[in-house]
């Protein structure tokens, strides 16, 4: 293991430990909102595997987040499945969805890929509305009280408890970061980067680029789906908005702000952006104005985002 990789590993572990420790010092509200930021950070991390590392810009990643939300929430709501079972099932379903969508979407490139993913996500969103008797449509469904706590390995886990939710989010974030770290440090990381940088050349070096892209797409979609499933079980509500365009764009925004192609970038972006919106909403109703301005500013002056710029200027070993 190289020194850079070691440093990077230590940094990431330190961030995770810090996130765990924070719960002992921050305010109740910070715990609640940081929980949500972490879940959305996981979503953006999944998006980042595809966008930041492999160079494929999907404008429809909310469809996987939404797939996770519904694949976890519907069995709990309709069939009374236990939460862990529904969670695992949702991850599996997101995986299946990602494979199928990936096979279709990866037939296109660049502009077409972006528009196609946008269209497919829109179709998914409309499907949720269409099957409103099952999904609750735009009104959504509130998870039954019974599902808000469950027994797992002899422990009673109460999802209405803020600290419990926070720790589950930290755990899932840790899993995401560690899995991504291993993936990106390994040979797939090199391959993804190569594809992002120069697809034609990579193919001529003997790589099956399409398979690699599909792999990236699948990992990305599955992580996004896991985030969606976590959202459903942790916050107890599922609704069509979570599959809407807004959420696809948020994933992009978090990633761009924090730094595409860095493991912690999406989380950082999620924390900063959510905090910013939360602050601004006390002052103005048009807080999305700033979201727009930040997007434009990022593309103009900060295409690498915060951590991306730091990585370029000071910490080249950052993963």
């Amino acid at each position: 293991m190289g020194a850079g990789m070691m440093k990077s590993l230590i940094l990431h572990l330190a961030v995770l430990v810090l996130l765990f420790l924070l719960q002992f010092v921050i305010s109740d509200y910070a715990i609640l909102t940081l929980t949500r930021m972490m879940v959305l950070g996981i979503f953006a991390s999944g998006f980042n595997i595809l966008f930041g590392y492999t160079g494929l810009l999907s404008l429809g990643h909310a469809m996987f987040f939404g797939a996770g939300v519904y694949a976890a929430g519907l069995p709990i709501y309709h069939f009374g499945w236990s939460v862990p079972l529904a969670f695992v099932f949702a991850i599996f379903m997101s995986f299946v969805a990602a494979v199928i969508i990936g096979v279709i979407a990866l037939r296109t490139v660049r502009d077409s890929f972006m528009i196609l993913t946008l269209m497919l996500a829109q179709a998914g969103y409309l499907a949720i509305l269409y099957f409103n008797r099952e999904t609750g449509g735009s009104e959504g469904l509130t998870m039954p009280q019974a599902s808000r706590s469950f027994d797992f390995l002899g422990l009673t886990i109460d999802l209405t408890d803020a600290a419990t939710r926070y720790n589950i989010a930290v755990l899932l974030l840790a899993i995401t970061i560690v899995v991504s770290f291993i993936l990106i440090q390994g040979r797939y990381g090199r391959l993804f980067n190569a594809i992002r940088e120069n697809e034609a050349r990579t193919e001529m070096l003997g790589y099956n680029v399409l398979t690699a892209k599909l792999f990236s797409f699948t990992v990305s979609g599955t992580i996004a789906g896991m985030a969606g499933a976590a959202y459903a079980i942790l916050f107890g509500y599922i609704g069509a908005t979570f599959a809407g365009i807004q959420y696809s764009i948020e994933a992009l925004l978090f990633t761009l702000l924090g730094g595409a192609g860095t493991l912690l970038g999406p989380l950082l972006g999620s924390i900063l952006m959510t905090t910013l919106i939360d602050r601004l909403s006390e002052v103005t109703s048009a807080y999305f104005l700033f979201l727009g301005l930040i997007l434009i500013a990022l593309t103009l002056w900060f295409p690498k985002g915060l951590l991306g710029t730091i990585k370029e200027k000071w910490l080249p070993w950052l993963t």
Partner: protein
Amino acid sequence: MTDKTGNKTFNLTRRTALKGLAAGTSLILSPAVLRHGLAHAGETIKLGAPIHRTGIGAAYGRWYERVANAAVKIINDGGGINGMPIELIIEDDGTDPKRGTEVVEKFATEYKVDAIFGQLFSHVVAAAAPRAGELKVPYLMCSETHQLAAGGFSRYAFQPGITDVKSQIASMAPWVSKNLGKKVTMIYPDYAFGYGHRDFFSAAMKEQGGEVSTLIPVPPTETSFSRYFPQIDPSSDVIYHVMVGPGVLTFVKELGEFFGSSHPAIFGFVDSIEAVDLATPQLSFLEDSYFWEAAPRYAQADQTEFDKFYREAVGVDANGASTSDPKDISTYSHMFSVWETLFAIKSAMEAADYKGVEQKEAFIEALENLGTMEASNEHPQGKKVMDPKTHQAFGVQNISQVKSSKMEVVYTTTIEEGMYEPEVDYSKMSL
């Protein structure tokens, strides 16, 4: 000791080691404390109002906010609640479930409000109400949703200001079948709010020996409607319509263009023309048609003192328009719920001699036991009866007919006509 940052959420025993870090983080993560945390507990009653300032609910939200401010002013001018003034904290929820929930969390844990009220659209309520329950903060919705009475939420959720949609609709059916006809075509929004109308009204009509022969769902985002109208069954006696969102004016205009002067009887929920000026030339076809209204938009001949008082306080003229701009039509038939909710909070707090969050449970129980609230300045829409089991208040409903581009009440239901068997008993749940 008073924390210098004004933040009272710290547990002093566990903030020894990471004191500096904690202070810094909390400043970043909780900017709100600086603005609102300065008052000491027991000095004010803090009420949080997540309002649909933006998003598809904005037309309602703007008036909800106006009513809330008017009511709070009156309460505070009269000495507040139990001697404490109300501190009203309003934040936009974007008519969005996630943001709506976040704002509820913020009110509960950051501002530490005594109660939250004011959310309207059912998808926002569906996401936010359970969280309020988990955070154990009283949550009073102004939304008409039946989810509460159907048992979807918790003991902390109430709807004291406005009757739920199931009751509203059920109480309309006997009158419609008796006076307009038994065969009905329904045009309704293709989402949850519309399904309530579809299901409850179909069932109620059946009970009356009538039938809903044609159902025409229209997506809520639709912007043109004419192409749906040919589906209307020409042999229907009644067209029942209800539409919400930014397209309502287009909807009624196109309905009029389509039919001209000859058409079946038309009965609509006032939602179809909430915030729309009836004097718009193309709406003349609505003349003589009927609307459900909770609170009559146009001051009636027998207008009560209470309605007069309420209009004046909110700044609404006899036509339901803003006193400063006669073209600016209010959401008159819904916004009274904010007013009545605030006064319900007041009387429950007074009954519980509420001084602060320690008496939260007493406050909840007092809300459950509000019982009958007589028509008054506090309840200008009319008498209400709070059902302690469902946490739902029931009131009278009005059927109005359009006459000279105004609506005249032709029938007022009794509260009993809208009652149904409770589907849940929240009062037995733990607090």
